[in-house]
């Protein structure tokens, strides 16, 4: 029997492994318990919370009784990328971002009831609905609109979207990605705003120059093609013509180092935060490239990508005399951060040129009735025959100090597609 007993250690070995496993679990639990617990905690902490838009409309709420998204399916879908959901499907919605702050946790009690958290948002649900309706169910894109004086974000829509309350919804491709914050796209001609700003500051006689375009220019044996033949034009005309020849030459003249410096300074290469929600960084050729590539990069092609939110920051700084009021959605977050992104003169001059664009080339009063609009179009060629349609700018109107970015992914022409959407959005924003 002694022998048998000695062999019974095999049971002790298994018991020891169970103990080791439990120790591993306890260590992991101490380390990650908070993240684990709050990931799916739903309402079992007993906490309550609510998201309320600027009109006082409840977008989402949760309590021990359950969680719900308010409004009809269309409202919920249009606002999905603002709210996110209770299950973390969208990583960027406010519910996902603030979920852990909206309830308590400690190791001993587990999830606990936090103070009731009511998040008041600057978002205008109706404006989001207008934007989502204008974008349509079938198009992908991003629409952003903020007050450039206060930094309040009024509209943030990303398509496709999904109704978070509908458990059986079949989400479209990428419906859980907020294109406003989490993606970067080839900018095309909207990027000429950056090249123009750099030129205003670095080429003293830029306003006296004239640029000649006969449909293309050859740089070191490589052709840079223009959208038209613009012949002799001033700097201002070149921007409104969106002349590739002129801006490629300007970028080459500025040099890659200067271009990189400005792209970086304007915050287009970095990720930012919208109320703590991280946004995607853009890209620009920072490693040495030759002049032809530099030329293409100056007109928003090459390897350039821009995140819509980063572009919104830039245009609202331009609108606000060069000072960026950091865009945000939470109204009770205190005084927003203000930083000077570009000198006042540069911002004002660029603003005038953007207004000239609208008045002289985009159809002015006819296409954008009643709007003191300053803007730039972009039709970013993707090399497969399709193009992203961009329209970015602001209203030079103290009553309605709105900056906006509209992107329709593979949507076609900047002015006709994104510009029209922007008009719908702005009319709604201005006229209620």
């Amino acid at each position, binding site marked *: *029997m002694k022998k048998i007993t000695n062999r019974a250690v095999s049971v002790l070995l298994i*018991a020891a492994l169970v103990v080791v496993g439990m120790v591993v679990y306890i260590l992991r639990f101490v380390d990650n318990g908070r993240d684990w617990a709050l990931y799916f905690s739903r309402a079992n902490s007993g906490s309550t919370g609510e998201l309320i838009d600027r009109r006082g409309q409840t977008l989402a709420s949760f309590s021990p009784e359950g969680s719900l998204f308010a409004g009809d399916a269309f409202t919920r879908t249009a606002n999905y990328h603002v709210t996110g959901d209770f299950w973390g499907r969208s990583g960027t919605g406010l519910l996902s971002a603030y979920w852990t702050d909206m309830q308590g946790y400690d190791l001993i009690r587990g999830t606990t009831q936090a103070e009731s958290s009511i998040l008041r948002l600057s978002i205008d649900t109706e404006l989001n609905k207008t934007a989502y309706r204008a974008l349509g169910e079938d198009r992908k894109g991003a629409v952003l609109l903020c007050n450039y004086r206060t930094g309040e974000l009024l509209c943030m829509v990303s398509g496709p979207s999904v109704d978070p309350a509908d458990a059986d919804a079949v989400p479209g491709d990428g419906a859980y990605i907020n294109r406003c914050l989490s993606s970067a796209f080839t900018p095309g001609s909207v990027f000429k705003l950056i090249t123009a700003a750099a030129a205003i500051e670095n080429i003293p006689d830029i306003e006296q120059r004239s640029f000649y375009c006969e449909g293309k220019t050859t740089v070191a044996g490589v052709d840079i093609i223009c959208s038209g033949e613009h012949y002799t034009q001033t700097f201002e005309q070149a921007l409104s013509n969106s002349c590739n020849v002129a801006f490629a030459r300007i970028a080459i003249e500025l040099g890659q180092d200067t271009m990189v410096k400005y792209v970086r300074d304007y915050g287009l290469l970095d990720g930012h935060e919208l109320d703590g929600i991280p946004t995607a960084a853009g890209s620009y050729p920072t490693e040495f490239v030759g002049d032809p590539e530099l030329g293409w990069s100056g007109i928003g092609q090459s390897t350039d990508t821009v995140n819509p939110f980063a572009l919104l920051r830039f245009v609202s700084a331009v609108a606000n005399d060069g000072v960026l009021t950091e865009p945000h959605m939470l109204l009770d977050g205190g005084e927003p951060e203000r930083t000077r992104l570009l000198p006042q003169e540069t911002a004002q001059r660029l603003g005038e040129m953007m207004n000239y664009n609208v008045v002289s080339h985009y159809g002015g009063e006819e296409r954008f009735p009643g709007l003191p609009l300053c803007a730039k179009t972009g039709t970013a060629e993707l090399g497969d025959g399709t193009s992203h349609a961009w329209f970015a700018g602001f209203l030079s109107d103290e009553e309605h100090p709105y900056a906006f970015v509209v992107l329709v992914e593979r949507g076609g022409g900047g002015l006709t597609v994104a510009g029209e959407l922007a008009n719908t959005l702005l009319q709604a924003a201005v006229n209620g």
Partner: protein
Amino acid sequence: MEAYAQFAQTLLGAAKFCLLPLSVAILVRCVRSMLSERYEPELWAYLRLGRETLPVCHWENIIGRSRGADLRVDRAGIGRVHAVLTRSDRGLWRVYDVFEQGGVWVNGVKVGESGAPLAHGDVLNLAGTNTRFLDISPEKRGSLANARTSAGHTVPPFLTLIYLTAFQLLLLLEHALSASREHLPAIALGFCTLILLQWGCYNAMRLINRSGFEVETLAFYLSSLGMSVAASSTPEDLYKQILLTVASVVLFLLFGWWLRNLKRVSVMRIPMALLALALLAVNVALGGTSYGAKNWLEFGGFSFQPSELVKAAYIYVGAATMDRLYRRRNLFGFIGFSAVCVIALALIGDFGTALIFFVSFLVISFMRSGSIATVFLAVSGAGLAGFLAVSARPYIAQRFASWGHVWEDVYDTGYQQTRAMSAAASGGLFGKGAGAGWLKDIFAANTDMVFAVVCEELGLLVALCMVLAMLTLALFAVRSARHGRSAYYAIAACAAMSMLLVQLALNVFGSLDILPFTGVTFPFVSRGGSSLLSCWLMMAFIKGADNRRDASFAVRPADRDSGRRPEEDEGEVRRT
């Protein structure tokens, strides 16, 4: 209504913090009683060797030169394991020559392969060394047995059972506050049934003068947690669970009683093996498929997993008395039987259970043969088979692939584990209260993720007590093995506990992403009748090995043994 809700909340809060002290008290009392109380060997006979007198403490003893021999005879020519001395139920002794060199003679007659009877005063010659065998009379044995410490001597089981009853009533109270009105009668009936069962068993044991009740106490403790999980997850199905609990306890008593008689047990091993194979065959042929494994049969509203019953049968067949241990063909027979069982389980697709069987096979074959080489051979063979299984069954490969990465895919491959971990952590150390969790509503929470359900509702500390209760039972099985009458009981108890521990490990660590997710049950606590039944049957093996004085109904007391009266008085022994 408001006032009532507030009162309920306060009550719930108070109950919550009482569950842990009660759990700890139950556990500590059982541990003290099972693991630290004195546990003297029984005494059956003596072997006189020159001036030395060696006590014969078991029904099965190894005689040899080895340190591990029960009767150590360190003389020239004697093998490390030279002979085996066994006692039958009827008190007849027999000696077997297992060394096969040097020889064994009884009163000058050489002992053959089938052994030879040995009686009081016989001269046992081991390779030329003469020893004399001296039996002890039943009366003398009775008085010797009475001098041993009885079970429950220092820690009376009565008070432990009072604590357990308080624990169950608190659980019932918590459920009463959180459950919907329509399910209250079933939940109340469930806990009351447990209380009645345990006190009924306790009193029955008192009547037949048995005082060891720790194994039952721990089993009832775990069953109470199981009842709590069932009450929160599937209250509408509770009557079935109650019925099966009663059936399990009754079968536990019957099976324990059956184990008393070793001869009866041995005779039934072959029929039991055939029954196990038949059950598996029926399962392979007719099993209903659920989530990859077709491991259940439907019987008049009860779904039933044959593989659970086969677990007990497997141990019943696999354990062996010592005289058989040293005959190789017996081990080969067992290896063949094991292979058929594991292959059948693989065909059924129940790889978790196949793994549990395999580990039990390792434990049993190691305990039987003591050969690490055999174990290595088996492990490498199984490794190969496992590899084939993983590559052949995509859903198993997927479980391995998602292992350690469950948070990367919380909606598909990591669905269950991430929810289990989240719910478990959200309960903290003391839990949200019985019935107040959300994990219970997730599919298979009450079986595969039951550890997390207990963590969420009753707290991590009670969940740890649940694991410690199982570990205590395992340590007790090992401790009992040293004092067991027969190798059969020792092997069976150790194999049963290793089976349950492996099952526990796969269940707990699978749901917490420490091991790949296999979807096996937590002993006693996971919902499921056949699983509960098999766990209670396993407890009968532990009771069979519990050889403390007056401890177990599954062990016949020494003084009432129907032994043969030896012709001589053993007073002679004392004089030497």
